[in-house]
C-alpha cells in the first residue's frame, strides 16, 4: 500500500497535475455558483476537454471540478438561498440567516474551513480504509437503504419542525407526493401527469429547490418590506459583510462538529445512492440534537454549528462516494456515474482490480483530493470578501437578479418554458405555506428521497417474496428503523416528560 501511496504522490505532485487541480477547483467553484449548473454539469463540461489527457490527469481535473462545484453551490446557498444541488440544501438553513444578518464573509469562511476539514479527514479515511469499506457497503441491501432514507426523513422532520412536528411531517408527505409525479419507474405507467407531456419525466429537483427556496425567499423579502429601523440596522451590519473573522470560541465550537460530521459524512457517502444529501441532512439533525436545548434553538437562525455540520458532511460524503466507484466500479451518485463513464472512455475498468492494474490512477486521484482541498481553501479564502459584496447590492436590483438566475438556471437545463411557469406556481405555493409557518426543508428532502425510497421498498418486497416481514426480520434494517422511530417520538414525548418532572417537583415542594 505504501508503494502505491508513494506512486500516487509522485503522479499527483507533477506540475501538470497540480495545475489541473487548480484549474479544476477554480472552474468548479465558478460553475457551481451558477444556479442550475451543479457538479454533474460541471464534470460533463470537462469530459471533452480531458479526452486528450493522461487518465490520471483527466481524473484529477474532474475531481477538482467536483470539489469546486460543491463549494460553489454552497456559496449560492449561503448568499442568496439558492441551493443549486441537493447536497447544499442543508447549508442554506443556517448559512443564509448568517449572511442576512451581515455575516456573509464569516458564513463563507466557515463553509470553506468546514469543507476543507471534511474533505481532508475523509481523504485520510479513503486512503486507509477504502478496500475494507467497499466490502461493508456491499452488505447494505435495499431494505437497509429504505430504512436509512426513513431515518433521514424523520430526522429532518423532527428537527426542522421547530416544535411543530405535525407540520413538518405534513410537508414531508407533500414532498413525497410530488416525487411520485411522472412515469412510474418500475411499471412504466404515468402518474399525476394530468395528461401533460411536460410532466411525463416528473418534476426536477432543481426546479423545486429553486422555486421553494430561492424564488419564494425573494418574493417573501418583497412581500415584507423592511422598516426604516431594520434598513439602518442592515446597513450597519453590511460594514462587516466581507469580514471572515472567527473568534476562538467559535472555532472551539466548530471543531468537534467538524470531527463528527466528517466521520458521519464519509460513511454515508460510501453507501451507493445515499450520498451528500442524506449525509448533510443527518449531520445537521445530529448536531441539533447534540447542541442541547439552548444552542439547539439557534439552529435555523444562523447557528455556526448548523452551518459547519452539513458543509463538512457533504464534502466528506463526496470523498466517500469515490470508494464504491474506485473499488467496486459502482457509482454512488450522478456525478460519480459521469466519472465512471470518463474512466471507461480512458479504457480503465474501475473495480477491485483497479489497485492492481492501474495503481497510479487509483492512488493519484486519492492524493489529489488532499491537494484539491488545500487549493480550494487557498483559492477561495481571498475571494470571499469580494463574493460577499453581492449582498450589498440594493434590493431593487438584487431581487430581480435572484429571480432571473433561478429561472434561467432551471430553463437552461430543459429549455422548456413550461418549467418557468411551473416554478411560478411552486414559488407562490411555497410563499403561502411559509406565511403559514410550514417548513420547506422536510418537503424538499421528501421529494429528493421519495423516488429512491419507493424503488428500494419495491425491490425489498420482490426479494422477500412480497412479505413485509423484512422490516423487522433483518437486524440492520430493524435497528435503523428503531432509531428513526425514536427520533420521531423524542420531540413528542419531551414536553410530557418535562411536565411530569415539574409535577413531581411541585409535589415534592408541597410535601417538603
Amino acid at each position: 500500500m505504501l508503494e502505491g501511496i508513494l506512486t500516487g504522490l509522485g503522479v499527483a505532485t507533477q506540475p501538470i497535475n497540480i495545475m489541473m487541480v487548480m484549474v479544476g477547483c477554480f472552474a468548479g467553484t465558478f460553475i457551481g455558483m451558477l444556479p442550475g449548473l451543479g457538479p454533474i454539469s460541471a464534470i460533463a463540461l470537462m469530459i471533452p476537454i480531458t479526452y486528450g489527457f493522461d487518465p490520471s490527469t483527466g481524473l484529477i481535473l474532474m475531481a477538482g471540478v467536483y470539489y469546486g462545484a460543491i463549494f460553489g453551490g454552497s456559496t449560492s446557498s449561503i448568499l442568496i438561498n439558492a441551493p443549486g444541488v441537493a447536497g447544499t440544501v442543508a447549508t442554506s438553513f443556517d448559512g443564509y440567516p448568517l449572511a442576512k444578518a451581515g455575516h456573509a464573509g464569516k458564513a463563507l469562511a466557515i463553509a470553506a474551513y468546514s469543507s476543507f476539514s471534511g474533505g481532508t479527514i475523509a481523504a485520510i479515511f479513503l486512503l486507509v480504509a477504502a478496500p475494507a469499506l467497499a466490502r461493508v457497503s456491499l452488505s447494505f441491501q435495499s431494505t437497509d437503504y429504505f430504512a436509512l432514507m426513513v431515518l433521514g426523513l424523520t430526522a429532518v422532520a423532527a428537527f426542522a419542525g421547530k416544535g411543530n412536528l405535525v407540520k413538518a411531517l405534513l410537508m414531508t408527505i407533500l414532498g413525497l407526493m410530488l416525487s411520485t409525479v411522472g412515469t412510474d419507474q418500475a411499471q412504466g405507467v404515468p402518474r399525476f401527469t394530468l395528461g401533460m407531456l411536460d410532466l411525463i419525466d416528473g418534476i426536477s429537483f432543481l426546479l423545486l429547490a429553486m422555486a421553494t427556496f430561492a424564488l419564494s425567499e425573494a418574493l417573501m423579502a418583497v412581500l415584507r418590506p423592511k422598516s426604516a429601523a431594520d434598513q439602518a440596522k442592515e446597513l450597519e451590519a453590511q460594514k462587516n459583510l466581507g469580514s471572515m473573522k472567527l473568534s476562538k470560541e467559535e472555532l472551539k465550537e466548530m471543531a468537534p462538529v467538524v470531527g463528527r460530521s466528517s466521520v458521519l459524512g464519509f460513511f454515508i457517502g460510501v453507501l451507493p445512492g445515499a450520498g451528500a444529501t442524506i449525509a448533510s441532512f443527518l449531520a445537521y439533525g445530529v448536531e441539533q440534537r447534540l447542541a442541547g436545548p439552548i444552542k439547539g434553538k439557534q439552529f435555523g437562525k444562523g447557528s455556526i454549528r448548523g452551518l459547519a455540520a452539513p458543509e463538512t458532511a457533504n464534502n466528506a460524503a463526496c470523498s466517500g462516494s469515490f470508494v464504491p466507484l474506485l473499488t467496486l466500479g459502482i457509482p454512488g451518485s450522478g456525478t460519480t456515474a459521469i466519472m465512471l463513464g470518463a474512466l471507461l472512455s480512458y479504457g480503465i475498468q474501475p473495480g477491485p482490480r483497479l489497485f492492481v492494474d492501474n495503481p497510479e490512477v487509483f492512488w493519484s486521484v486519492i492524493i489529489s483530493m488532499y491537494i484539491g482541498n488545500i487549493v480550494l481553501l487557498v483559492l477561495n479564502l481571498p475571494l470571499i470578501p469580494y463574493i460577499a459584496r453581492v449582498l450589498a447590492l440594493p434590493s431593487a436590483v438584487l431581487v430581480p437578479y435572484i429571480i432571473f438566475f433561478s429561472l434561467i438556471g432551471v430553463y437552461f437545463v430543459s429549455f422548456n418554458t413550461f418549467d418557468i411557469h411551473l416554478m411560478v406556481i411552486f414559488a407562490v405555493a411555497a410563499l403561502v405555506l411559509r406565511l403559514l409557518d410550514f417548513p420547506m426543508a422536510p418537503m424538499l428532502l421528501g421529494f429528493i428521497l421519495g423516488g429512491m425510497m419507493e424503488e428500494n421498498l419495491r425491490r425489498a418486497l420482490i426479494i422477500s417474496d412480497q412479505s413485509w416481514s423484512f422490516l423487522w426480520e433483518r437486524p440492520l434494517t430493524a435497528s435503523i428503523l428503531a432509531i428513526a422511530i425514536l427520533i420521531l417520538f423524542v420531540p413528542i414525548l419531551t414536553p410530557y416528560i418535562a411536565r411530569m418532572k415539574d409535577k413531581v417537583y411541585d409535589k415534592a415542594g408541597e410535601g417538603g
Partner: protein
Amino acid sequence: MSRDRVGALLLLVFFVVYGYLSTKITLLPFQLNSAFHARTAPQFLTAAGIVLALFLLFKPSDLRPMDTSGMTFKRVSMLCGLMIFYGLTVRSLGFLASTMIFLAGGFWVMGERRWIVLIGASVPIVVGFWLLMTQALDVFVAPFPAFLG
C-alpha cells in the same frame, strides 16, 4: 381561522385531490395482484396525509389570525406576472430582448426609476451572461427571435 388551520385545510384539499387522482393511475390486471404497484405509495401517502391534516385541523391551537398588514401583495403579483411574461417570451422574443425587458421591468417594479440603472444593470449583464454561456461554456442559447434565425 388560525394559520395552522388554514394550512391544514389547504393541504387537506390537496391530499384529497391527489388521492382521487391516484385511483386513476392505469394498472394492468396482473399488476393489481402484486403487493406493491404504482398506486401503493400514492395511496399510503394520501391516507397518512389526510390523517395528519385532520389532526392539525382539529387540534387546539393558537387562534390568532394571520397579520397581513404592511405586506406588498401588489408588488409580488407584478413580479409573478413578469416571470410568466418571461416564460412566454424567452423563445418568441429571443433570450437577449426578453431577459433585458424582464430585468429592467423587475427593477422598475422594485421601485427603481433611474434610466441609467434600468438599462445599465440589465443590458451588460444579459449580454455578458449570454457570451459566457455560449462562448465559454458551449451552451447554445438563441439570442434573437425565432423569425430572425
